[in-house]
């Protein structure tokens, strides 16, 4: 069981890293882009660039705060 936990923690650390907000926001951004494109018929190419450049200072601020 502890081996399984270590395995899971390794992959969490490898993919999610030290700020889970980034991964969560990317998943939400992709889902919202797909919804806007397929359901609302909006070609939302602008959403992910705004999200990505907006995420960086937020993540830096969170890491600085938690230090």
């Amino acid at each position, binding site marked *: 069981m502890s081996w399984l936990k270590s395995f899971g923690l390794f992959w969490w650390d490898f993919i999610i890293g030290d*700020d889970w907000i980034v991964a969560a926001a990317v998943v939400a951004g992709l889902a919202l882009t797909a919804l806007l494109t397929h359901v609302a018929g909006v070609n939302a190419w602008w959403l992910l660039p705004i999200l990505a450049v907006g995420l*960086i200072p937020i993540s*830096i601020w969170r890491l600085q705060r938690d230090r």
Partner: protein
Amino acid sequence: MASVALFVAVFLACIVEAVEALTILLAAGTRGWRSALIGGAAAVVTLAVIVALLGPAISAIPISYLRLFVGGLLLVFGVGWLRKAIMRASGLKALHDEDKIYAEKLAAARAASTEKRPLVGDWYAFTLSFKGVLLEGLEVVFIVLTFGTNQHNVPLAALAAGCAVLLIGGLGIAVRSPLARVPENTMKFVVGVMLTGFGIFWGAEGAGVVWPGSDGALLVLIPAVLAVSLLYVKAFAPRAHLVEDVAVEEFE
């Protein structure tokens, strides 16, 4: 253009990780080269098995889902690399320094006790080398597979990675000391920008977006990510209190 970008992104990412793996391997080697080299070789074999298992699985995913998945993964990695690079460039975080990291690893390696196991003379040197090479290599494996399958050119991505490993391996054998002169911090910045740019592009395409200008959008997207990142460096620099302690973070 995309092929050149693919080669450059994978080559630079692999150079950075190979330099870090070499530092760990050199520190492990001071306890015994045989155990350290067996550890490094075992890690390379493990990475090859991961590529052999994951490669066909990733290739089997339909292209739109693949782009969504790969784009999301690259974006998460890219923002992570870029965030650290911006923090280092602005002074919020200590610069990555191979000489100091080597000194730390060396001190830890010298202090550790010797434990013999079958086939391996020194278990500490073996595990230090194995973990170092495996963990540094894993991110490169992901970058090679995701970039390669998306561009339908895994061989080119593998070639870029191979060139980087040969270059750093050759330099490492020649110099036999950490490659502190490799501009790692700048290279990490460039890789972060490229991963983020490609992540945005492929992620949005996978979600159904049609980019204005098609592939040409990358020519705007990547410079735009770079420009905004440089602005962030300027914006955060006045807030930075100099970090005196060295960031000896494990495998980053």
